[in-house]
């Protein structure tokens, strides 16, 4: 479904993404594990086309088409979406309207359904704005509900677990699994080995490069053993 081939991004002379290749199959949850500063969010931006990021090399192929020159809207219309690590807050935009527009103007009951899937009581949230009055955790769960409402072919989830309390974490995990059951492939970007274990495959990112891909438990363990203790942060030659 998604093939990223030899992707490069250089900003102000600094190599941010370095010859990165990645393959996400249809129906797959693909985890990307990486420490802070390894380029996780940059990959999300490059695939979605957000934040004015354009690759300086390589290709991003989605369902057979190179999408690197498409706008964010055009990519979304092809079935790709992104849930930000820190979702935007929009004053005056109600949760019900946000979920409705995410779901291509679906029925009101669907908005309620998706909120329940991430453990939120619709009566408490539908008429609230997605603004600063929501906590970070509430906003992230609403973001996940909006992705569920969209039924994307590929959902890029950038650290969906960060800032989530221990009670809400299983609800986030459940939401991601439900998304996958609905038919969405998921690119799950995280620095949590536990979160990565719900994936079908996991890739480890270091200095903007995928240094290892494999089964979740083994790869997570490898990440824990090597990256958590690495004295040469973001120097992939040391760990490959």
């Amino acid at each position, binding site marked *: 479904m998604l093939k990223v081939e030899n992707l490069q991004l250089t900003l102000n002379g600094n190599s941010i993404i370095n010859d990165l290749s990645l393959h996400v199959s249809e129906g797959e949850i693909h985890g990307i594990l990486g420490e802070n500063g390894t380029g996780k969010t940059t990959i999300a931006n490059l695939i979605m086309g957000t934040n004015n990021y354009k690759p300086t090399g390589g290709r991003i192929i989605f369902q057979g088409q190179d999408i690197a020159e498409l706008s964010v*809207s055009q990519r*979304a219309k092809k079935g790709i979406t*992104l849930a930000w690590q820190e979702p935007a807050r929009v*004053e*005056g*935009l109600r949760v019900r309207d946000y979920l409705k*527009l995410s779901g291509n103007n679906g029925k009101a009951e669907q908005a309620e359904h998706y909120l329940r899937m991430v453990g939120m009581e619709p009566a408490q949230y539908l008429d609230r704005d997605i603004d600063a009055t929501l906590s970070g955790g509430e906003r992230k769960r609403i973001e996940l509900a909006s992705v569920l409402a969209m039924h994307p072919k590929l959902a890029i989830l950038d650290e969906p677990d960060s800032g989530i309390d221990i009670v809400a974490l299983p609800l986030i995990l459940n939401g991601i699994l439900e998304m996958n059951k609905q038919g969405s492939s998921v690119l799950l970007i995280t620095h949590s080995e536990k979160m990565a274990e719900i994936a079908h495959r996991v890739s480890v990112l270091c200095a903007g490069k995928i240094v290892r891909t494999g089964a979740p438990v083994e790869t997570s363990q490898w990440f824990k053993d090597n990256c958590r203790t690495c004295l040469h942060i973001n120097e992939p030659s040391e760990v490959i």
Partner: protein
Amino acid sequence: MIRYSVEKEYQGMIDAYEKAGGDKSALQSKDVAKLVIHQNRVLASDGVKGLNIETRETETGVDVNLLVEEGAKITRPVHLCFGILPKEGLQEIVMKVNARDNSEVHVIAHCIFPNAVKVIHKMDADIEIGNNARFDYKETHYHGESGGIEVIPKARVKVGKGGVWQSTFALSQGLVGKLDYDFEVFCQEKAVAELTVKAYGKGSDDIKIWEKIHLNGTGARGLAKSRIVLSDKAKAEVKGETYGNAPYARGHVDCMELVNGTEAVARAIPIVSVTNGKAKVTHEAAIGSIDRKQVETLMARGLDEDEAVDVIVRGILR
């Protein structure tokens, strides 16, 4: 009671109101207090139990006295409808409002100028809110697309002990033209004042907002809030002033102006002043373009860029 001779004019106002998205059944209901004024003619004036409306037509407008009796709780919103349907005209509304102690009322004002090419609408209001009384006032404007209108609403509001004044002024349909909004509120002990202005400036609209809140009583609270969106060559200047003059007075000025495009100009001048060591007044003013991350969030759900901007603007002005 609608005067027969002006029935046609009244129908014109109702139609224009409905066309602008209003609910005309509210203006036609006998159980709802209402006042409909076209230019300087009073087309309908109905009070309800506990609320009395008196009017006097003048050469250029109408003098209005609105009295809410002591302890009266007016359950259904009072509807005021002011407008000028022809392309040219002057309307000066001089309003005196007295909401007596322990009363409660919610007033919705619709100001309709769908065809304005050379129209001036002025409102000059003296408003007294009694002790523990509550007055909610929402004024929504419906303008046409020519921009040939000057709107000058001015009000001085005195809020008694424990009283509440909440007002919202919204002008987001059609071109603003020239707007010179000036509301000043004086709060006694434990009184609350919340002023909100929302406007969408387009074309060569010229918007001036001046919100002033004087927190003169112990524990008085005030919020001066504005949300302005500008595009094309529109310009806006927002002054939000709050004065903490008594112990435990708490005030806040909250101004947001979004500029969409390269030719619109926005200015914000927040003024906060404290003359009592136990008072606290804060302010925040944000001026800038529409947040790119907000736009991209909506684009990532499949909206085109223009649609995303429209959703954000509508949210801010809602």
